């Protein structure tokens, strides 16, 4: 188990380094740099001084090696855009994104898995067909449209705030009031993220459980006198989780690295927006830092999904045992 964990940790570090390096180099290759937007305001000499100040006049290899020497110590440099340490900026936003990601993950799981088990484990019925159609609809709607529809719904009904993470008076609130305020702001972005994921989970779970209920050991458990529902939950469901949990790794990675569309539409101050702003302004180090954070969460998500799978599926445990 120790060797397994070490192997995964090594893989995660390699992934983080590769992805952030590639992001930095690709951003460098794109036309322009962080000073470009001042090009129509500053004379060429002033612009050159500004580039030199930021170290952008150095050869790419020198810039990269300087950055890399910091990155291996988990210091991703200073943002050229905000003149602040990249780690601080990411830390601020990662927390916001994590709140949203956890809410979306819980929602997607609570909605998607039970519906998947329901739609895949029984005979065809109107209810199951309705679940299937709803899932396909949720999967077909692009995130931008889904987010806007939810924002519109919130505005039309007045039930929930249209956007943002907290109300403007948030600073004067007590801790519990602040949490309640956050909880009021969370449903719209969380639902916008969760609905397509729930639909994906439902579809995957439905197909997996449909296969699992046909396994001989499930039939055997029924023959031993177990009820249908109990046989499904106790025997078919754990086995069917293998492909579903595999998806969690990717889901966790993508959710925790921030969704640009949902964060922009619902004004959620998360990592997705930060990375978009960094990309637009060609802030090399911030882009690399955001990419590193995304890669880290992807690796962590995959590891978490593997661990969950080992807990859920006895066959995986037995494979790992030797």
């Amino acid at each position, binding site marked *: 188990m120790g060797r397994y964990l070490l192997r995964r940790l090594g893989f995660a570090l390699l992934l983080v380094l590769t992805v952030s390096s590639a992001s930095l180099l690709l951003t460098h290759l794109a036309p*322009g740099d962080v000073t470009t937007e*001042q090009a*129509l305001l500053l004379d060429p000499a002033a612009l050159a001084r500004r580039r030199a*100040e930021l170290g952008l006049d150095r050869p790419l290899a020198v810039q990269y090696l300087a950055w890399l020497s910091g990155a291996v110590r988990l210091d991703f440099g200073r943002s050229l855009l905000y003149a602040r340490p990249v780690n601080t900026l990411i830390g601020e936003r990662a927390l916001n994104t994590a709140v949203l990601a956890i809410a979306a993950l819980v929602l997607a799981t609570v909605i998607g898995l039970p519906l998947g088990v329901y739609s895949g484990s029984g005979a065809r019925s109107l209810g199951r067909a309705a679940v299937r159609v709803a899932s396909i609809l949720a999967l077909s709607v692009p995130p931008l449209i889904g987010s806007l529809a939810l924002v519109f719904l919130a505005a039309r*009904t007045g039930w929930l705030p249209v956007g943002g993470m907290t109300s403007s008076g948030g600073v004067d609130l007590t801790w519990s009031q602040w949490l309640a305020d956050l909880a009021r702001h969370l449903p719209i972005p969380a639902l916008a993220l969760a609905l397509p994921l729930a639909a994906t989970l439902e579809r995957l779970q439905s197909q997996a459980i449909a296969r699992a209920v046909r396994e001989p050991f499930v039939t055997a458990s029924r023959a031993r006198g177990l009820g249908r529902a109990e046989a499904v939950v106790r025997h078919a469901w754990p086995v069917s989780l293998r492909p579903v949990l595999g998806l969690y790794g990717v889901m966790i990675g993508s959710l925790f690295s921030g969704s640009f569309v949902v964060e922009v*539409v619902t004004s959620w101050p998360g990592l997705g927006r930060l990375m978009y702003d960094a990309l637009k302004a060609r802030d090399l180090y911030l882009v690399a830092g955001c990419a590193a954070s995304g890669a880290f969460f992807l690796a962590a998500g995959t590891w978490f999904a593997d661990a969950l799978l080992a807990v859920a599926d006895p066959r995986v445990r037995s494979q790992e045992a030797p």
Partner: protein
Amino acid sequence: MNRQPRALLSVLLLGIIAFTGWRWWSGQKPPADSGTEIVFSAASTRGGVLTSSLRSEPRSFNRWVDRNFPTALIAHITQGTLVRINRTTQAVEPALAESWTASPDNQTFTLTLRETSWSDGTPFTSADVLFTFKAVYDPKVNSILASSLQVKGQPLAVTAPDARTVVIRYPGPFGPGIALLDNLTIAPKHKLEAALDAGTFAQAWGVATPVNELVSLGPFVLSRYEPGQRLVFDRNPRYWKKDASGAALPSLDQLILEVVPDQNAELVRLQSGQIDMLQQQVRPEDIATLRPLAEQGKIQLLELGVGTDPDLFFFNLRPQQWAKDPRGSWMARKEFRQAISHAVDRETFANTVFLGAGVPIWGPITPGNQMWFSPNVPRYAHSIDKAKELLAGLGLANRDADEWLEDEKGTEARFTLLTYRGNSSLERGSAVLREELRPLGIAVDVVALEQGALTERMVKGDFEAISFFFSSSNLDPAMNPDFWLSSGSAHIWNIGQATPATEWEKQIDDLMQKMMSGTDQAERKQVFDQVQKIFAENLPVIYFVAPRMYMGVSSRVGSMSPTILRPQLLWAADTLTVRSPGDAGQGGR
């Protein structure tokens, strides 16, 4: 076998549920927040909180080095200048300088400073003014204000005989006179001197600076910054200005800028009453959405007039661009540009791009800039025949079976047009241009780039044609010399020329120098009319339509002085008022 009918039935069922839900929802009373009629007393009130949107976050609070709109807006709200150009009347008004005198040659101005203090209680003195000039002109600072505070390429000479007097000597005559100082946000010496001495002024007042370190001379002080969410400004109790009744300004207790990056979400927030005003003008496609709300009295749709910064279209006129290109013999000729101007139906352009809310224009100064607009410039009436005649004169004709023109060597009349991805009017305008030039036999390949890449290509001269926008912060052309002068950094068709590349650019340079140094307003206007005429004849930049601009504001906002220039309402944030339903003693929301 029965799978398909069941699936169909479930789709039908879902449809019925959705339709019923929609009907029910449509029949519901709108939410309390936006539905109940708002009734206010006519009188303006003091106090209250006004919330505006802000589309992007500030990257710095340092107005002297950061050019982005949020930073400039925050400076408008929190800082002060010596004099102010009234955005609605264009008159120069006293601000931190309560009065001034000009020398007979109009080159030396003696300003008497107002007796006031920074928000932390430190007195405002001439030392702050001297310090600000020193910082702006320091090459290590790379201030974005430096070039706009020069006359004939030279900095202004500033002295301070005493704590309340500043003498500013211009290196030569300058038409706008003291209005130039409207650009200069005064910096607090007691807070920033150490940074200037240490060579770190450019990094000072970053967004991580604690808000209590930021001091103000303006109507508000930044009291809270929540990254990614909002900026909260409280009334500056030491602000110097009073209203007509002698009451201290600002009228508002608090001003909040909510960061709303998405324009659709911004509109929804205005509709639902969660913000009081949009950061900038309403998009043409959103006017129809807001008009019913305006008719119901829930919002105000303010018509600001014709925009003064129209979208522009220009070719690369750097000689080196076309030196080895076979298209150079006709692409860089003014007749080619005139043909394009003739080929575009500006009415169609206005209807398609601005949904009818636009007026045709033939030059960079639009009717929105009443002081400087000249109606007597060459106009290019829509005429395909005239356009074809001009192109034939350049040797362009359809010499094969396709629909495009070719020159004598068989080179097709085709160019690549770069535009700014995500800007709806530019993207639509480029598509209209492509379609309008097709009947003429000119092929246009439109490529949308994001802003950084587009600017990079523009500055490096790596383009054939560009459709873009260019914001100016001032209506007097003398304050935008970088656009007009051939040596300017914003002379976008051929940036930063050592000597004028063409005879007509030399003529414009000479006339602009005359116009900038003239002190007689009528004479300046006359000279600038000539500039506009030469510009419209040679068309280095082609203009089609200037949009009519509208602002969406909640009905509860009052005492506004809307203007065409950004920030359209918050430039006079000190006088804005909000009326709460309680003030009227009736109604509510």
